[in-house]
């Protein structure tokens, strides 16, 4: 089955020319065929088929059908689904089963979506290539020698390889958009606060946001519509965030730059007005981002102590050694690196120099974006400064890896929404993504933009 946007499939489902059961079986089949890509950490074969039958029955009875009736969705494995594994790509939670459903999962299921399984990711969402997963990296469907990006690499490949229609990812510093860019699909990171984080295992709580990966703007729009909105269980949800926004164009691959500029010119020819903008503090965004997110992560991951759940070292002889050994063996290298960094920037004597200063810079970056959005509707940039890279290419140098987040972290610092959409292939045959950034709570504009772009430049 070649890809069609959901509204086309929905027509057939409504007409009864195809059943949910058939749709699910198709995707489960593709999941099996793509097993070598290492996308899925759990596949809900039984659960999905049972749910599909129920949905078909529901349609048969003429009951009202949800907005996502029969849409097959895969979920990043740091989002809680009741009674399913929740590994976060970590040995620490290898055998951990969630006790409850994340709000987004409840909302998807309420609209009759079909959840197919949980997909691979960088450990605790810390990584830009999928290589930090304790369960091995997911391979890029476009070329298996290349990383899919991260941390939502599993979600991006799940969509690009056709194992599902839409996948949920999470974006702390570009983790939806960069893999979307690397895998030639759309990746939307909504405004911070737009989507409830209840049931999302925290990496950096004030950055984390659940986002959508899809083939089409209309699918991304539909799913975001369902999962967004206030949730009393997340006090930060739907809190209006001061709009702001970022971009900076150094260190940019020349070919990507040309490709993006060509698209900008095309947009101009279609009536868009190009306004060069300046975000004075954006060059500090990467440093600011890594100080604040590692600090929050060191705090958020303190709970993995082997006491109540998760990995516990069996050789430990007392409380202290249980902590040390369980955390030493349960966490991977990148996660430990970030816990150490975060612990350092929060320690007394360094707090003011690092954490507090970074918070102040975050506010400046936010204000920069706010000013820019007084003049423009959408800010455009490449999603990633480079083409997808090969496995192992950057794994040994964390700084190189962190640079992959250059264009995406500013959005999270400012809390605004942004979307990555395929912009074409380079001469090397590898994809390039273009990023549209919008005002806080104005996902509508960037999705419209996305749709326009898709209609005129891709189809």
């Amino acid at each position: 089955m070649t890809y069609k946007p959901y509204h086309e499939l929905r027509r057939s489902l409504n007409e009864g020319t195809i059943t949910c059961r058939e749709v699910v079986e198709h995707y489960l089949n593709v999941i099996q065929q793509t097993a070598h890509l290492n996308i899925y950490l759990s596949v809900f074969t039984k659960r999905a088929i049972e749910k599909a039958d129920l949905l078909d029955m529901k349609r048969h009875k003429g009951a009202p059908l949800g907005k996502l009736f029969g849409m097959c969705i895969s979920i990043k494995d740091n989002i809680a689904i009741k009674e399913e594994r929740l590994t976060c790509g970590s040995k620490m939670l290898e055998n951990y089963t969630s006790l409850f459903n994340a709000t987004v999962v409840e909302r998807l299921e309420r609209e009759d979506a079909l959840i197919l399984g949980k997909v691979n990711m960088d450990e605790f969402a810390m990584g830009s290539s999928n290589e930090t997963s304790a369960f091995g990296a997911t391979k890029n469907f476009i070329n298996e020698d290349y990383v899919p990006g991260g941390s939502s690499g599993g979600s991006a490949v799940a969509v690009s390889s056709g194992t599902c229609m839409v996948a949920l990812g999470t974006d702390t510093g570009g983790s939806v958009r960069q893999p979307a860019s690397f895998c030639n699909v759309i990746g939307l990171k909504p405004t911070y606060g737009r989507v409830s984080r209840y049931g999302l295992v925290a990496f950096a709580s004030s950055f984390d946001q659940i986002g959508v990966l899809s083939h089409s703007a209309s699918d991304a729009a539909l799913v975001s519509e369902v999962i967004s909105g206030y949730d009393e269980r997340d006090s930060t949800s739907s809190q209006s965030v001061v709009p702001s926004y970022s971009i900076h164009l150094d260190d940019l691959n020349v070919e990507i730059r040309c490709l993006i500029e060509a698209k900008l010119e095309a947009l101009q020819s279609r009536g868009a007005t190009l306004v060069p903008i300046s975000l004075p503090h954006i060059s500090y965004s990467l440093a600011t981002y890594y100080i604040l997110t590692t600090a929050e992560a060191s705090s958020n991951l303190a709970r993995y102590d082997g006491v109540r759940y998760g990995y516990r070292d069996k050789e430990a002889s007392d409380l202290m050694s249980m902590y040390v050994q369980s955390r030493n063996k349960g966490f991977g290298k990148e996660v430990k690196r970030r816990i150490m960094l975060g612990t350092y920037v929060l320690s007394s004597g360094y707090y003011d120099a690092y954490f507090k200063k970074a918070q102040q810079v975050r506010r400046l970056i936010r204000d920069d974006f706010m000013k820019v959005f007084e003049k423009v509707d959408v800010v455009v940039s490449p999603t990633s400064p480079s083409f997808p890279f090969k496995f192992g290419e950057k794994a040994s140098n964390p700084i190189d890896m962190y640079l992959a987040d250059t264009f995406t972290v500013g959005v999270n610092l400012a809390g605004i929404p942004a979307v990555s959409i395929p912009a074409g292939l380079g001469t090397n045959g590898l994809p390039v993504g273009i990023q549209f950034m919008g005002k806080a709570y104005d996902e509508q504009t960037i999705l419209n933009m996305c749709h326009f772009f898709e209609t005129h430049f891709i189809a």
Partner: protein
Amino acid sequence: MVYSNRISLRRLCRLSFLVSRHNRHYSNLSYNPREQEWRSVVGLEIHAQIQSESKLFSGASTKYAGSTNTQVSIFDAAIPGTLPVLNRHIVEAGIRTAAALGCKLSQMSKFDRKHYFYADLPAGYQITQQRHPLARNGKVKYLVYNTDNWNKYSWKTASIIQLQLEQDSGKSLHDADQNRSLIDLNRAGVGLMEIVTAPDFTDGEEASSFVRELVLMLRRLETCSGRMEEGALRVDANISVHRPGEPLGVRTEVKNLNSVKSVGRAIDYEIKRQIGELESGREIVNETRSFDAQSGQTIAMRDKEKLQDYRFMPEPNLLPVFLYDSKSVPMGVDPANVIITDHLLQGLPSSPSKSYERIHDDHKISIRNCVILVNEDGLLKIFDEIVERRDAKALINFLIADFLGVAHARDINLLQCPVPFRHIAEVFDMKTNRYISNDNVTQVLELMFDFPNKTPGEIVKEKELENIQDLEVLQAECEKTLLKHPNVVQRWKVGQQKEKKGRQDPMLKLVNTTMTALNNRANPLVLISIFEKLLSKK
């Protein structure tokens, strides 16, 4: 300086040689080495559990003494993906308490994370309000008194530095037999207010008096049960000593004092210990100590990380708490997202010290009786309601000596007094007017509680407990007594020539015998006058 006296008395023998030398030297000055040798400085951190059905950030119950781990939500257990939701009721209780302690409320307060690893702290951090507390800068006037010596009392004022909201931790239960620790998370996440005082106390008596007053205040506010024996209120004391004119000494912290008495004893012990250490040429180590109520000593706690770095960080999952009064709330702000304080600050109960002062000044009642009246939940209210046009001193004596005994024996909570106050007043009036005898007061009070729907007047009539007014009946009974006890009459006659005591004893015997015969239904003074009349004829 009460305290310095006490230390120095103990030390006097040991130091007599030194002191006498000094005395010689300063003999022409009014130098008193006992008072000037050392100063002690004490500050308190009080953790009070806020009365609330559910916890600070979750819906789990806060009931005391539930079976282990039955009052734990997934948030309380730090299950991945869970988030805190602030309990508005607890914030409101904190606001009321802060206002009652004279604090300035913060228009914006924020939550922080305080990190440390411990098995009963599930998230690896406690959510607290280190940097932006709910309220700051309070003042509490309190009465320092000693139940062993009611004549020695004084008024003091303590400053409150801040009042902050935070989570309680779980409990670790150490099973020594099986060499393991078990964790009970029922308490984890219960809302606490931490009240931090300035180092305004000089000794255990002052500090414990303050705590006693604070407990009373919280109970009046109904923001904390104050039940220290249940751990609903725990006190940490920071203690140091120094010589006058010198900078403050190194402090130690004595943790988890769980009774008013322990607060006083632990602080006084620790002051003595520190002075002893310094005078023996040793240094005071900045450390955490615990108090052993059995031995009365403080003991250093094992502190693995000497200097704990709590790595405070803003809590990213909670919004700041904004307080406004209904006039200052900005346009467009959703009242659901802020707390309007007006109605919370109305009808705050007055402080215990204000009550002491008021009763003491208005009615000239002893401090001891003021303290009893104020400390007994609900008793002051009864007093205030019925004191008008009555003799206050007699009324207090009646309430404390007669009424409270009966109420206590029946375990009655006077905050929900089951009988109308006017019934209590009626019994008092009957006693004062000698409509009933003192000996029947207790019985009438008991019947009053038994039959809350009847007035004491009706009860007394029904049960025939009122004094017999008919002098002839009384005289007849007195004559019977005289006939039955000729030997007592004889003793009375002999006693007439002796001193007062010799006269009184036989008369008392006659009256008591007659009272018993009359079921206590007589005014003994009337009986005495009858007896005197009858005996004088003999």
